[in-house]
């Protein structure tokens, strides 16, 4: 256990934004907090970061209370919707600023990791929105946080850039064995990026679990089918018809081309997530039933 949030209550303009929220984020996991806008998820994130105060409740890291600590001493960094790179600094200076000993070498290494090598001296307006968000992520990592908060960081991006950044963030957080808390309104995004998911509604926790568990217990969570444990070089999908019903066969292939799994799905149109075609060994993928199409 690392981040423990207990009974957080927040009232804003006579309205409960958070109504006794409990949340546990384990070390080295990516935890997603999912809810519609107004569910209080961003407020909770800002309370954890120290940017807002809670009326009652506690937030601890390894038992150490955080709520009295100012944000710049919590070792919690944040990536938000907008990259918010400081405009008077160059791309690299933005990252250097966050490193412990103001090291250009370290900043350059971070830029390499987010696949922006050699862009240290560029002005930030020379970068695209997706690139700026990658720099912002590098900057958040460079501060060597114990927890990184992701506040809908993919919202303003085009679909392609979005999937690219989702994968980048997931890979780096796992590689560096970091802990991350992602806030999103997009369930699909939570399925793709997170190890565990907490559903928040009207300032209260509805359910917590792995995406698979939530699929079992929460009908509202969505029509997902989990394809997990693939340790094989490719996954293939095939749609056939059996007795007049469409059946989707998902084959996980080993190098001999054997069929290892078969999923029979109900009638409907399915999309495979991510839309990115580069399937990787050991990844978990989901099929999602498209709503409204029969």
């Amino acid at each position, binding site marked *: 256990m690392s981040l423990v949030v207990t009974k957080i209550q927040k009232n804003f303009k006579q309205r409960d934004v958070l109504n006794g929220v409990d949340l546990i984020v384990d070390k080295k996991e990516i935890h997603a907090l999912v809810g519609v806008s107004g569910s209080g998820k961003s407020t909770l994130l800002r309370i954890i970061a120290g940017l807002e105060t809670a009326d009652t409740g506690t937030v601890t890291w390894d038992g150490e209370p955080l709520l009295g600590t100012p944000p710049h001493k919590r070792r919690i960094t944040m990536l*938000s919707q907008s990259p918010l790179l400081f405009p008077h600094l160059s791309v690299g200076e933005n990252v250097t600023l966050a490193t412990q000993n103001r090291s250009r070498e370290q900043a350059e290494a971070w830029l390499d990791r987010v696949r922006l090598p050699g862009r240290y001296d560029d002005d930030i307006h020379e970068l695209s929105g997706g690139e700026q968000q990658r720099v912002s992520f590098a900057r958040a990592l460079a501060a060597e946080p114990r927890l990184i908060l992701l506040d809908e960081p993919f919202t303003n991006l085009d679909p392609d850039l979005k999937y690219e950044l989702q994968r980048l963030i997931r890979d780096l957080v796992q590689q560096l064995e970091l802990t991350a808390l992602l806030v999103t309104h997009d369930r699909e995004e939570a399925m793709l990026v997170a190890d565990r998911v907490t559903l928040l509604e009207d300032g209260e926790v509805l359910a917590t679990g792995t995406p698979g568990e939530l699929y079992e217990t929460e009908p509202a969570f969505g029509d997902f089918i989990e394809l997990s444990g693939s340790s094989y070089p490719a996954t293939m999908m095939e749609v056939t018809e059996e007795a007049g019903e469409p059946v989707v066969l998902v084959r996980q292939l080993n190098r001999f081309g054997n069929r290892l799994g078969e999923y029979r799905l109900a009638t409907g149109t399915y999309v495979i997530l991510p839309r990115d075609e580069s399937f990787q060994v050991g990844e978990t993928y989901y099929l999602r039933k498209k709503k409204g199409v029969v």
Partner: protein
Amino acid sequence: MSRGSVGLSVIVLLLPLAGLAFLAGETASFEWTSLWRDAAWRASLAVTLYVTLVSTTISLLIGTWLARTVRIREAVWLSALLKLPMFVPHVAGAYLFLLLFSGGFPFYGLVEANERHHFVVILTYVWKEVPFVFLMMLGTYGQLNRGYLDMAKTLQLTRFEQFKVAEWPFLLKPLLDSFWILVAFISFAYEVPALLGVTFPELLGVLAYERLTTGLFLNANESYAVALVWTLLISVGAFVSYLVTAKRRRRIEKGVRR
């Protein structure tokens, strides 16, 4: 409708420039070194620089600090209170300060006692200009994206660094604007120092106006020359300061997220 008003505005706005051109014409044959030889002008220059820079700096500091306080702590009472001096013309403000500081109660002739320091002139300007700076900076802080400050906090920067990266860059331009507006306004004015200032050394504006209007404009060229030189000095100062910061300001303008 708007094109007609632009035309009229342009004509009106060209007038001061035309005025400066005429000043240059009038002083074409003026012997400039005579200004420097005159002890009154030299003393006036020194005291003008002192009064102008002190009043401007204090006003900028207090005004910015108050705007910041209002935005961050949402102190609405403060913005209402700071409106009050804006209803008072400089002349009226100066006279009120004169009444308070020249007689007995409550300050027992602080004007006379501290005349060498132009204490009351500076106080009057600070009282009048703080709300002006406050208003300029309140707008700036209103447009400032709070996300930058939040970001600086979560990047584990110290409070000073937070200010340096997330506030200061955005204050640069409005502070520069306010600085030169105040300098131009305070350094060459008659109204306030004429009421509150001392007879020697006088501020440039007072001396220039008095030399101009005494003796049937016989010494007019001298005052014209001072007005022209002073305007040029301020223009060069402003130009240089904008030039030096141009690259930085452009960078900020292009990269900023509202």
